[in-house]
């Protein structure tokens, strides 16, 4: 490097030879940056086409049930919407707030509910914001009767359905693990997502054998591969797996999708 090419940053101009190399470096970046951006984006695994109707609240008539999970059974179609609250909280939080406000319990009662719809893969969730009591009488007949489908062994990933069905992408695996822990700890009904090699996916609501919540016991297994043994019920639109913490076993996530969905 000659004396003329010695670089001094505080001088107005760099020496021409150095400027030439820097220009080449920038030119390389101008080519590399688009290529890199394209390569990174194109090689992602993609995102589910789930929907979160943020900013577009819906108003629906139906009956609220709190057990085995908070549901709204629609009056018009009988469709069963799992209830959650805004943020990372289960439906119970909004229901308690509304109950305090109207001075009456909501379990088993007909309401006009307002909230944000979250839907994907034929499953729908309502992020409950408001509810007006339409009748103060309990309507037990609207509650779906669970049908026992027998003992099953399932392999999948425990996550929260609110993120999984719409509010987040991706809503599974390691990047979403902490969020799923927060959602389930906040009372959102946990689900087991089970997929097979063909790409078919089913979601199983997880509950304890006595129909109570199982959130706390599941937290160490959230976002990881698990094998769960339990009794399967068809509960209206949803499949529900009753299990105990002792019947949940962590497995290598790589072994997921390699067997049948259900044994």
């Amino acid at each position, binding site marked *: 490097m000659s004396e003329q090419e010695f670089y001094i940053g505080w*001088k*107005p101009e760099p020496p021409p030879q150095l400027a030439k190399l*820097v220009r080449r470096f920038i030119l390389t970046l101008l080519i590399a940056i688009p290529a890199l951006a394209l390569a990174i984006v*194109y090689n*992602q*695994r993609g995102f589910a086409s789930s929907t979160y109707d943020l900013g577009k609240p819906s108003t629906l008539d139906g009956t609220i049930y709190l057990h085995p999970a908070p549901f709204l059974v629609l009056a018009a179609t009988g469709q069963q919407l799992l209830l959650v609250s*805004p943020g990372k909280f289960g439906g119970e939080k909004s229901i308690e707030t509304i109950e305090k406000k109207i001075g009456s319990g909501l379990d088993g009662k007909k309401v006009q509910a307002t909230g944000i719809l979250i839907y994907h893969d034929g499953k729908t969730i309502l992020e409950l914001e408001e509810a007006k009591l339409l009748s103060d009488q309990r309507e037990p007949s609207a509650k779906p009767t669970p049908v026992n489908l027998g003992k099953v062994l399932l392999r999948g990933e425990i996550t929260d359905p609110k993120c999984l069905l719409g509010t987040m992408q991706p809503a599974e695996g390691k990047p979403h693990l902490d*969020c799923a822990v927060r959602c389930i700890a*906040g009372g959102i009904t946990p689900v087991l997502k089970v997929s097979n090699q063909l790409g078919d996916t089913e979601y199983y609501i997880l509950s304890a054998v006595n129909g109570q919540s199982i959130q706390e016991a599941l937290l160490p297994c959230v976002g990881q591969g698990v094998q769960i043994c339990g009794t399967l019920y068809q509960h209206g639109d949803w499949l529900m797996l009753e299990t105990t913490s002792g019947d949940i076993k962590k497995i290598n996530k790589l072994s997921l999708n390699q067997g049948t969905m259900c044994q």
Partner: protein
Amino acid sequence: MSVTYDSIHWAPQKKVYDKWMIGLMALYLVLFCGFQLVFFPEITPETLIIRATGTLAFLMLHIILCIGPLCRLDRRFLPLLYNRRHLGVATFLVSAIHGVFNTIQFHAFGNVNPLFSLLTSNTDFTSLQGFPFQILGLLSLIILFLMAATSHDFWLNRLSPRVWKTLHMSVYAAYAMLMMHVMLGVIQLEKSPVLIGITGLGLSLVVGLHLLSALAQLKTLRRAVPAKQAAASEAIPKDFVYACTVDDIPENCAKMLIIKNENIAIFKYDGKVSAVHNLCKHQNGPLSEGRIIDGCITCPWHGYQYLPENGQSPPPFTEKLHTYDVHIDGEKVYINPKPYPEGTSRPPAIIPNYLNPVKP
């Protein structure tokens, strides 16, 4: 080089540097978001921001880490080093956007404080597959913050170049943790061989350039040890040791020497030879790779200047270097490696029969 602490000393080349830096950052963000919306229109805005800023910050950190060894291997890359601090601060800002959006997305609006959630939601520290990668991201962000916050020359002077340099070397710890953050986080989900390949290529580039630069540095250090000479004649003053020949030092340049653990730069200029400590007071830049410009030793990194006879920056600047006594016997240059206090005037050794080189 500035005698006062401006918030930013806007030299013209810094403006050009920053314009290109911001332009290239914007180009990446626009293209990344554009490609996302074309190939994956179902992506949520939060995920788009998280992925765009995360990948950009990681890319910028790779460029930052490559600039140092590139400059050691080929000094023509020095213009990239001059304003690297702005690149570092920009990297922190992009990383901070990534971190804040991640914390809001995954930890806010829950039943505990978001930061508490980040630290406690996953505590599977014993498993590589389950390792809490977000904590690694947080630790790297803290390091990048400390570096960005102390990047100004005010902190360099307050902390001393040695402490400042040590603090800023923690960028390697941040890089290692970010690499693990990526590999144990999003790569575990995505599993794409191309993404793994790109990450591996980045790591190989950083490690490879550092190894090559270390080898080059080792050669320089070997050359810096003076050749052994027969016992000096009585004409050589006591405590002086042989350094090199006059011809070993290029005109208006220096030769680096390591003598008795002293790192010394011997400069030849205008028929004279002077010796000063080799490390610039600014950021420990290698003065022996500098030049004599306008009668001053000029550091190759940021252009800090010193007078060769006394190691002092010309007024109004106040930086001072240790100086050394030099003796010339015929063609041989001898040096006393005992340093004088910083800024001590020492007469340069005069080259006998010096012929002023013809300038082109």
